[in-house]
């Protein structure tokens, strides 16, 4: 079983590594400092399990997961993020509150080994809940070729449906994100956005003209 540890604090990774010594079946293939390294490593190694911190440079743990098409099983490790904990509790996910004990860690691993398949669906649901948090509702993270682009929400002009994807139109161009219109409508809810059509969500702040039809 392959696993990756993603945390911006080296000592926090060391902690997980130390606890994992008791599990010879779980092999740590990579350690990552941030979400960008995380995405690369996940694509490269296709791990079965990741340990993921939430608050990290540039993009947080949830935003990283959003950018991965087929996320592996996740054990979240976090110190204190109210919205994250809310997301976990809503979906009964397993998460480790730092600092955590060896016993707590063992329990999380055991639980994970038992309910292998459920976990992935759960991850999607958590990411979705978390996308409505204050931090994340201000921006949207997309993949732009090999790079990752963070779009501040006010810069979005409109969103257009395109099969499995949505096209996000901004002054800088067009970005694709593999999400449903419903998902975007929900996460843009708090802002000045309206779904004017089945396939279009627009930024009402940027309307310059309305033609009567």
């Amino acid at each position: 079983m392959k696993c990756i540890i993603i945390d911006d604090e080296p000592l926090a990774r060391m902690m997980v590594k130390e606890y994992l010594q008791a599990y010879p079946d779980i092999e740590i293939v990579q350690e990552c400092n941030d979400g960008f390294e995380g995405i690369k490593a996940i694509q490269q190694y296709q791990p079965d399990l990741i340990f993921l911190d939430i608050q990290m440079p540039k993009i947080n743990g949830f935003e990283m997961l959003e950018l991965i098409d087929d996320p592996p099983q996740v054990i979240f490790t976090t110190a204190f993020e109210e919205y994250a904990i809310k997301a976990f509790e809503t979906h009964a996910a397993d998460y480790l509150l730092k600092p955590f004990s060896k016993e707590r860690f063992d329990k999380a691993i055991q639980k994970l080994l038992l309910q292998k398949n459920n976990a992935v669906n759960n991850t999607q649901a958590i990411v979705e809940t978390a996308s409505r948090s204050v931090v994340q509702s201000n921006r949207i993270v997309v993949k732009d070729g090999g790079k990752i682009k963070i779009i501040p929400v006010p810069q979005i002009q409109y969103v257009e449906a395109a099969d499995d994807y949505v096209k996000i139109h901004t002054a800088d161009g067009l970005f694709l994100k593999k999400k449903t219109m419903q998902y975007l409508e929900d996460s843009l809810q708090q802002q000045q956005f309206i779904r004017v059509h089945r396939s279009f969500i627009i930024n009402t702040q940027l309307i310059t003209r309305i033609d009567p039809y």
Partner: protein
Amino acid sequence: MASLNKNNAKYIPFFVGWALLWIFIQWNVLLKFGITETEAIVDSYLSNILLAASCFMVFNNMKYYLPKNEKYWYIVAVSFVLSCCWLIIIRVILWYIFKNDEHYISTLQQSSTIRFGFAFLMIGCMSTISLLYYTQKDQQRTIEQQKEIQQLAKDAELFKLRQQLQPHFLFNSLNSISALTATQPENARHMIQQLSDFLRGTIKKDDQHKNSLAEELQYLELYLDIEKVRFGHRLKTEINVAENIQQMELPSLILQPVVENAIKFGLYDTIGEVTISIAAKKEDETLVVTVQNPFDAETAQPLQGTGFGLASIKRRLFLLFARQDLLQTKTENDHFITTIIIPQAI
């Protein structure tokens, strides 16, 4: 006489219109008594303009002196005295101008009582209106002040809460210690001791207490040491303090939250090594401390980064020094710079 303030200026047209109305009435009445056109005009203009001036004076005076006790006797007395003065003045002036016209002079003498009564009523009305107007304003101000006092008390309480440690910092530090215990027990012990000193500092200091720059920097070092254990590979700091300013004073624990904000902003907004520069110097009897951190202009979210942490520091500086301009932020070439200015008691 004091000038009208902006707020009262809107009443001027009404005031002037009212005076003009009475000029017109008096002019008409005087004509009925067989007085020449010129005399009637001069008389009505002079009397009413002087009366208007008296009213205006009463209104303006109330702004500075609002009687609290016996206010109605005050109004009667003021009206009586002013009406008497007014009557004497217009009689002297009008007599002087038209002393050759006997008919006019006798009318002037006969109408003295009614003129006095009219002036007394006018000035009386004006003082009553002014009294009510300013009393109401005063009450409004009192209510506003009370509201503000309550708000301040609430803010102070909130601020106390805010002063407590960032839970995120605390739990992550504990996690680092936990990680160190197995392999580097000495370092773990050292960090526990640093964290304890830091916590002790946050608990005992009160809002009004002042520290010397040296003490404050020492405390800051403690904090930075802990953060460096957490982010060792990424976090670099530069502290640059001008000579001979170690004894300058600043409110206790004012620097640490600013630096904490800079670290949070710097570390979570960029990837790779982050240098936080802290510089202190003396400028015109004030202590100027600048904290600089890198950030990414494209993705930085001012709301998130500068929001709560800096706002509460600004508020605290305002409460301590009654100035809004003591905390300033600016961005320069992908660097975010926070400047704090601490006036020194002379």
